[in-house]
């Protein structure tokens, strides 16, 4: 009989929403026949941060010096490292002002108060270690976890989604928030996989799954709409920064959106 796959779920600085989403998957109970949990502090008191694992799920941004050491240790002990959710993949909403000075932020928040741990500006896990797979979203959908975990367990490799939220939104038959209401819906440039959850409620996408590459289908035609609706470059850039502050191609991408449509 094959041994159980050893799983670790580790938290850096975050809201714990990815783990909560994972814990909320009813099928998890059945999956226990196939997986053994070596480390998952949110649910298990017998968690061992130093255990060898087959799959390491990491939630949260690297926000303290201690967390830098932790991710390095996880990498050494794990065969597959999965960055889970917007914080681990992109640095999370706490990176919205990543260019501000840390000392300044610290002073406004804590005044002259001293704390014995070393804080730092939030960063994605990938800035410190090699990441093998990414699960996107804030939080990811339950099916994202099931797909990735299930695929690993059958010995295969899960695929990435390379089309925008608009594709799923059209399939759901929603009225277009960008075209019809002129609201800054980030659907055209945000990675799909959520079944256009927010636009289906009439809410403009805020891009929680992160930007897709800009070489994908429809990018040019969809992006053109931003300008046609009178949205500005600054507005789109600022909104994209909520979940994409660490994307090195961000400005280039927004630049392209507003260039492409030049008459």
């Amino acid at each position, binding site marked *: 009989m094959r041994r159980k796959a050893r799983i670790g779920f580790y*938290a850096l*600085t*975050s*809201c*714990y*929403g*990815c783990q*909560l*989403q994972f*814990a*909320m998957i*009813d099928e*998890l*109970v059945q999956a*226990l026949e196939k997986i053994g*949990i070596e480390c998952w*502090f*949110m*649910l*298990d*008191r*017998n*968690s061992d*941060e130093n255990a060898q694992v087959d799959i390491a799920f990491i939630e949260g*941004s690297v*926000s*303290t010096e201690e*967390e830098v050491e932790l991710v390095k240790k996880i990498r050494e002990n794990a065969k597959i490292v999965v960055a889970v959710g917007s914080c681990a993949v992109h640095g*999370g*909403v*706490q990176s*919205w*002002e990543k260019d*501000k000075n840390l000392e300044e*932020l610290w002073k*406004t*928040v*804590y*005044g002259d*108060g*001293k*704390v*014995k*741990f070393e*804080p*730092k500006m*939030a960063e994605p896990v990938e800035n410190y270690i090699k990441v093998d797979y990414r699960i996107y979203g*804030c*939080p990811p959908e339950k099916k994202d976890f099931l797909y990735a975990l299930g695929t690993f367990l059958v010995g295969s490799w899960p695929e990435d989604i390379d089309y925008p939220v608009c594709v799923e939104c059209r399939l759901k038959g929603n009225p277009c928030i960008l075209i019809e209401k002129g609201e800054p819906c980030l659907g055209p440039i945000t990675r799909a996989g959520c079944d256009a*959850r*927010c636009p*289906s*409620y*009439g*809410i403009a996408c*805020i891009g*929680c799954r992160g930007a897709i590459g800009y070489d994908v289908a429809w990018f040019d035609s969809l992006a053109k709409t931003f300008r046609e609706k009178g949205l500005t470059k600054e507005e789109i850039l*600022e*909104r994209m920064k*909520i979940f994409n502050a660490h994307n090195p191609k961000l400005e280039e991408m927004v630049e392209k959106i507003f260039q492409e449509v030049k008459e």
Partner: protein
Amino acid sequence: MKNLYLPITVDHIARVEGKGGVEIVVGDEGVKEVRLNIIEGPRFFEAITLGKKLDEALAVYPRICSFCSAAHKLTAVEAAEKAIGFTPREEIQALREVLYIGDMIESHALHLYLLVLPDYLGYSNPLKMVNEYKKEIGIALDLKNLGSWMMDELGARAIHQENVVLGGFGKLPDKATLELMKKRLSEALPKAEYTFELFSKLEQYEEVEGPIIHMAVKPRGDVYGIYGDYIKVSDGFEFPSEDYKKHMVERVVEHSFAKHSFYNGEKPFMVGALSRLVNNAETLYGRARELYESHKDLLRPTNPFANNLAQALELVYFIERGIDLIDEALAKWPIRPRDPVEIKDGFGVSSTEAPRGIVTYTLEVKDGKVAYADIITPTAFNLAMMEVHVRMMAEKHYNDDPERLKYLTEMVVRAYDPCISCSVHVARL
């Protein structure tokens, strides 16, 4: 010769939300120091949302915490609506409260069954209880699923609800879904009562028995619940929520990225389900009122472990309350989901009762942007009191096997249902 003592530490407390540890320093005279180390990194939420568009800031605030994201969203939106001078219609307010109740049900069920119960039954992990405690795990999943389904329907998802917007909701469920919600709530009532029965039998450790100052939002309309405009203290004092800074004074402490709070700058205090009951029990009604009257001795204000049972009682209460609130909304059917809002300049404070206690948002809006933000979360309020109770436990058991001491002190921390992620974002600008 002096004895040498090593500190007894739990580096990372399991089965709580967020990352924190306990450190107990023992000397010749007994326990010298007790520290709750809060080691989650800071996220500067108030600082990063400054100067940002109001709606985008409101999308970011719930990310402070997943276990109570609906609480953050709804409190932030209320503060923002007060700031811009908008009052939601009664039926919208009722449905927002139903969404909040979804959060309460999910959070309490999760805390009681998955985080607390394993300690009492001798498990490290609730998932391992599945075979022997099928019924309990079944109830836990049913209640948790009910809560998250309510948040899905009203909030667009169970974690980080985008469907709540200035002026109302993006979209509302149809009438049939609300009828179904009522039905599912009433079907869950016996499960909540079972939960109360179960938790009424669990030990409340007398080591931590002693006087506690409790604070809770005084419910609007004198019906036990979530929203209110005054904060009530168990010593009889009451103050308007806007004055929280005068009476709930924060200090930076060296061992924590979260500040500690003190009543009038001196005394630690408690917030949460137990504090709500202590201060507002006379506003309960229905089955929960009956259970409260018959179990008063177990729901006593002097023991933090009673907070577990208080949450179980609230499961019963909020299920019944949810049904009534849906009826209030249905009486006005059909409901327009959203009113147009004008983003005027202004200043607003909202304090509500999150599953773990008072959460306070203060927002100032200028030119459509956030000009000032201050957020204080229940766990930040509770930390100082929690340290007092951990110390009381440690003083009785520091000579025991360190494993036993760790186990007991962790249980004290868990009884507070701390949300460490919440506590760490704290900022003052």
